[in-house]
């Protein structure tokens, strides 16, 4: 009888090492380790090359001598200013749109198509947004506003406002999608409970839905800020300046300094781009390039880390809800 059994009975006592298993496990680990090493390599290289350049002078001074010396303060200022402007435009619009799509709009095919389009737009190349920014904001909106207001060429040229608007359009899908996810994660039963107590729709959203979705919305906002701060392609033609001896600041009523959205500006990522590709002496300015890159990396990583910590924190809290 034993001879007819096709499958050999294994020895239950021994635990043979199956080399194929081990090999594949090691391989899978390598697949994670190599990207991590690359990450470490990039970070290490930037820190190694840039840490010597970073000094208070570097961070607080304007570029000098054809940008071969001096600091990058206008770039830092420009990056912060444009990011602020961008989020001021994109956050209310994106969160509002997401609330509208999730809570008010129905499940009709029109809105299904719109949701799919928004989702897809999050993956569209950033240079396309740059094209859109030039074609729509500057040449269409700007020129027409100029024409109507008889302002010559005030709006119809690259400036911070249009760059910020272009970046806002770029991060809009990111904000909408993350807000939608956060809103959808709030259990439907909580909405029903609130409505059954006689709450109006907005009361329900304000008191029940938004407090629970806050974490997710905030995470999306921080991630989009980080993305906006690091993007170069959309602002290449919509407002960045190669070199600008002044800050894009205007004195409101002659006293209060505010960001001037109608001025051009310098920006960290754009600065890196031109310093590496169009600098007069790429080798001599290498320390500046490294230093600028380090500042940009520091800025975006800080934002990303904040977002990640936020997400973990809020996911834990949501986890509690789902266990119950």
């Amino acid at each position, binding site marked *: 009888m034993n001879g007819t059994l096709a499958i050999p009975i294994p020895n239950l006592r021994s635990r043979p090492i199956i080399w194929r298993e081990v090999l594949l496990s090691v391989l899978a680990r390598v697949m994670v380790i190599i990207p991590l090493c690359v990450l470490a390599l990039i970070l290490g290289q930037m820190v190694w090359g840039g840490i010597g350049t970073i000094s208070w002078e570097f961070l607080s001074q304007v570029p000098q001598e054809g940008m071969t010396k001096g600091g990058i303060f206008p770039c830092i200022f420009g990056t912060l200013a444009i990011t602020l402007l961008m989020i001021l435009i994109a956050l209310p619009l994106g969160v509002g749109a997401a609330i509208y799509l999730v809570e008010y709009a129905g499940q009709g095919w029109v809105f299904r198509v719109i949701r799919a389009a928004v989702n897809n737009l999050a993956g569209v190349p950033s240079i396309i947004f740059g094209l859109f920014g030039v074609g729509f904001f500057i040449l269409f909106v700007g020129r027409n506003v100029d024409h109507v207001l008889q302002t010559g060429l005030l709006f119809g040229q690259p400036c911070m406002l249009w760059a910020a608007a272009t970046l806002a359009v770029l991060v809009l899908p990111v904000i909408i999608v993350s807000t939608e996810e956060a809103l959808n994660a709030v259990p439907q039963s909580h909405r029903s*409970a609130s409505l059954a107590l006689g709450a109006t729709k907005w009361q329900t959203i304000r*008191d029940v839905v938004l407090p629970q979705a806050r974490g997710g919305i905030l995470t999306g906002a921080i991630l989009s800020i980080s993305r906006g701060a690091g993007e170069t392609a959309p602002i290449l033609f919509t407002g960045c300046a190669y070199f600008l001896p002044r800050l894009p600041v205007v004195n409101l009523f002659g006293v209060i300094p505010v960001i001037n959205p109608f001025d051009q500006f310098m920006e960290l990522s754009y600065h890196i781009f031109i310093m590496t590709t169009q600098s007069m002496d790429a080798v001599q300015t290498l320390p500046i390039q490294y230093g600028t890159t380090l500042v940009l990396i520091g800025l975006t990583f800080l934002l990303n880390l904040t977002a990640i910590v936020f997400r973990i924190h809020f996911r834990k809290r949501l986890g509690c809800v789902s266990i119950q």
Partner: protein
Amino acid sequence: MEYVKPAVLFKRSMVALGPYQEEEKPVENDMTGKSQLDLTELKKRSENFQNPFVKIKARNLSVYYGQTAALSNVSMEIRKQAVTALIGPSGCGKSTFLRTLNRMNDTIPGTRVTGKVFIDNINIYDPDINVVALRRMVGMVFQKSNPFPKSIVDNAAYGLRLHGIRDRDVLEEKVEESLRKAALWDEVKDRLHSSALELSGGQQQRLCIARALAVDPEILLMDEPASALDPISTAKIEELIHALKKDYTIVIVTHNMQQAARVSDYTAFFLLGEMVEYDHTQKIFEVPKDKRTEDYITGRFG
């Protein structure tokens, strides 16, 4: 003895002294300019019939989700200050019927309701009805306990705050009152400000009941309130239903026939969107008139 704020004590003593109240205008005259029509007008639109023992009256009620009819042509009268159970296999329309009573079906897109539902002889599907106010008067407890991720107090006071009550004393008083009514006060009085999610499942469900009671509803709808609970918690909820029925008109959906037999005074049996039989609970369970009811009761299907 618990500590009671002087203001609360004063209020309570005034209440105990008797019906001291500021003089109120008769209903006919106190319509504000905002309201578009008065109740007498609404009453005129309703059927000229009122049985003093009937709280809810459904007339030819049908509900459609899209093209499919979830409920067809149901007419029934639900008694005041009694427990009415709705039983039937799942998908028979009993929950749908329950949700028509406070118009929660309005929140589901693609739902269409025909027919009329009268509560105290007012058609709640009249276009002039304020749905938000209606839902305040018709409380609802859901199948799965769904306390908000807030503190116990905030949960119980949620409905009150919605309706603009900000006075701390009033809020405290009402929260305590509703928690007591929901038989939860003694268990949570020491940790009122801890998260509602730390409560056990049964306590959470009772908190949901307290939350519904806090806004002074007259009718309490319960959609399988004990289906996700263990037997001990279920027993507590059933006890609670017994205690509440002297003050409230309770309609409860349950798939558990023993539970229906234990808690309800009247029972309606639903099948495939139709109401098959509606009678005293005892009669339904002992001498059902309809063959289908008998089959269901004896466990031949469903």
